[in-house]
């Protein structure tokens, strides 16, 4: 073995992993499901959504998707403090989420709404930031519908485009609340250099990038799939 191994415990269970393994990956080996929105096993972790935070006994909570395991580390993934933190983050993300998530409405796999259910969040205490400044939709692509209001800036589409497909079309633009994803130098998607591979749509966890062809259907698995 070329890498040194480190020993740690996650939720009281011991595990040994190669040095450099993230806490999130180590937890998966123990079948511990740490919620996350920005990370996917197909991608380089970036730690932007902070939903995967865990308590390692440090001064603040750590994003497990980017934090490497350390020898002797004691990780808690679901303490009340951690859960409170996640609920707050979810409420913030949901505060300006559109009424109709095109992903939930079509393929039923909106990951943000799934987490809202998992955390029992039925209403949001925060003001809707989009009430007087909606972020808009872009239906210029023949295949992909863009709803900026449903975008949580998780960066999955950016990495899907730049790092999986290397088409380098998607980026971010704007500052503060006006930050959103953009195509090329902020062209409409259908007029950009987008090659319509659909990777962004496939990796998007929310209703921000969805399949136009499913615009009026709701898919439901047959035979409990």
């Amino acid at each position: 073995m070329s890498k040194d191994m480190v020993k740690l415990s996650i939720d009281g269970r011991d595990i040994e992993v190669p040095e450099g393994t993230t806490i999130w990956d180590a937890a998966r080996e123990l079948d511990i499901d740490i919620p996350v929105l920005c990370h996917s096993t197909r991608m380089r972790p970036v730690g932007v959504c902070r939903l995967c935070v865990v308590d390692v006994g440090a001064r603040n909570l750590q994003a497990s998707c980017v934090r490497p395991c350390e020898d002797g580390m004691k990780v808690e993934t679901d303490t009340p403090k951690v859960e409170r933190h996640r609920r707050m983050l979810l409420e913030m993300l949901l505060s300006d989420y559109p009424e109709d998530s095109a992903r939930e409405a079509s393929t039923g796999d909106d990951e943000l709404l799934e987490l809202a259910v998992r955390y029992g969040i039925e209403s949001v205490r925060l003001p809707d930031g989009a009430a007087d400044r909606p972020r808009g939709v872009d239906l210029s692509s023949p295949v992909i519908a863009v709803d900026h209001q449903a975008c949580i800036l998780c960066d999955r589409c950016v990495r899907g485009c730049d790092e999986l497909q290397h088409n380098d079309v998607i980026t971010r633009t704007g500052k503060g609340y006006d930050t959103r994803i953009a195509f090329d130098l902020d062209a409409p998607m259908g007029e950009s250099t987008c090659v319509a591979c659909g990777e962004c749509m496939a990796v998007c966890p929310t209703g921000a990038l969805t399949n136009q062809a499913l615009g009026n259907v709701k898919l439901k698995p047959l035979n409990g799939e």
Partner: protein
Amino acid sequence: MKQVPNAMVEQRTTVGFKGVDSLCPYCGVGCALTFRVDASGERILDVQGRDGAANAGRLCVKGRYGYDYAMHPQRLRKPLIRRESSYPKQPLSGDVKGNGGGPRKPGGIVDYDEILPHFREASWDEALDLVANRLAGLRDRHGGDSLAGFGSAKGSNEEAYLFQKLVRAAFRTNNVDHCTRLCHASSVAALLEGIGSGAVTNVVRDIENADTAMLAGCNPTDNHPVAATFIKDAAVNGTKLVVVNTRRPRIADHAEIYLQIHPGTDVALFNGMMHVLIRENLIDREFIDTRTEGFSELRKVVEEYDPDTTAALCGVDPDDLVRAARLLGGGRRAMIFWGMGISQHTHGTDNSRCLISLAMITGNVGKPGTGLHPLRGQNNVQGASDAGLIPMVYPDYQAVDDPGVQAYFEDYWGTSLSPKPGLTVTEIMGAALEGQVRGMYVQGENPFVSDPDTNKVRKALMALEFLVVQDLFLTETAEFADVILPGSSFMEKLGTYTNTDRRVQIGRPAMSLPGEARQDWEIICEIGTRMGYEMRYESVSAVFDEFAGCTENYKTLSHENLGRYGKWYPCLDPATSDGEPIVFGDTFPRGKALLVPARLRQPEEHVDSDYPLILNTGRVLEHWHTGSMTRRSAALDRISPDAFVEINPEDAARLHVVDGAMVEVASRRGSIRLKAKVVPRVAEGTVFVPMHFREACANVLTSPALDPQGKIPTFKYCAVRVRPLEGASHGKEAMGG
């Protein structure tokens, strides 16, 4: 307080779906995917990438959005027989009649109203009996060689195997071929000669282990898009790309060196690189001594190609040539990919010979990060070739003129077989024109659009006494048919497909057949049986077993052990192994590799003052070959609706051609009208026309001149002229669609 949406939208129809693990039907990359299909099996809802060995969940625009052709209303649903009143045979639509013929309605897909009245619906029994009787009649009167068949590289291994068996055993001829002839036939000829095997030595994703990769005459971001993503991954991680192409491909943006050579000078460039490698002693002496033969002859020839003279001949900077050579040698691990820009020339075999020699003298075969990879075009062109859909060989490249092999297959198939190698695609068209080939079975190919020199193909198809076409749609070729049989699309069939990496994977049926359409493999068997040669199988997997049983490479495989993800061949122990991603570590099938030197030859066709530009043809990202599938996909058609010719800004200015304006492109064989796209990616003196658009068919222009070994036409080189069309200076006007 804001309520969290629960996202039940009343306006939407709820559709139950099931997921079917299958493959992409388009290119040779062989991406694994899942079709989500509704309960009726009549509608694919969407496509999701699956974690296959070739794609790791990634897809391109065709794989993800190009599935709806199978659901197109123009799908053929019943067998059709040409009406008595529609003889003598003529092309039926304006587009197929050619210049000045008929009410012209250019653009888009076939107008069924123009074609269908010439045919009547028939029962399967009537249609199949007619086919069998007419083909058997020609065979009995004029001999087996009066018949020929074109199979398809889009079909499964099982279909390819059955098709060549039908032609050999029931037609009694070896006149069976498919579009490999238009694709990599010259690469395969060079590989069989050089190492004794036509398949790739290393899989695409092995590029992650390479220090250098040369991409010659290929345009992977358009033609092998998902493979291109792994090539770009490698470039990001430090692999140096050397890109050689007459027309700048997008992958050149990721290259260390881009060599935009003059068309047809490939051999000189590669010889020049070998000259540098030998002169600077960047070669692998031990590998040359132990694994190759013919080095001294090769050395003598490449000595003539010093970098300065060669670079001038090729139109590149001599320093770039030298740098490119250095990146391939000196113990660096280098991989060579190539495509149609290498193979589709009258010197296609020579081009490949040079690439093989480049790999061999630098010791770049048989270990990780090295090797020879001709990027296969069709999803199953590797498998169709392996299955013997080639006129000179039985399955597994066993020569038809070897008496021992003939005896083996006579025993295996229980009939007598012809010892005479058959004719190739382009030769069959010539023989039809001369009346030697009288009857043809064309399954899933569209030679009217795909073969060179359309005007000649038109005459050849008209000259046939009997033509049966089996396809999904009324293709341009079907206009010449006596009988048209409705076959099965990829999404409706079970079968195995072998990708560019030699990975054998199972495609599974997601949809039910439309109308009375039938499984292609069953139709082939029906024709054989009705011609007096029994072809009966219990299942598709039984066909696979018979095919695998007469090969070395497939003999360990079965539908059962291929499972959800398939295996690379060779695979000695499928129970424990995924197969071999890298082959020939110790020896080549022919023993030592043969280094075959080549000298630059003059092209068959010359540019002159009448035809001053060189035409290159190829594909675009969104379309597939003759467009019969992709132009019936709503998304793909919307993204890429029109034919176009790319022309360099300098040439455009000189010819008064404006971007978007209509122009005429003419060669010595014919002319087409289409929109000009003024772009610097094509070099001055060259133009590019994609092959997909029937209304501006690139092959009206191309030359049927062939490579002497591979018999592949020179799709990448013919002389043309371009002139602007008066009264059509704004591209928006004519040629919609």
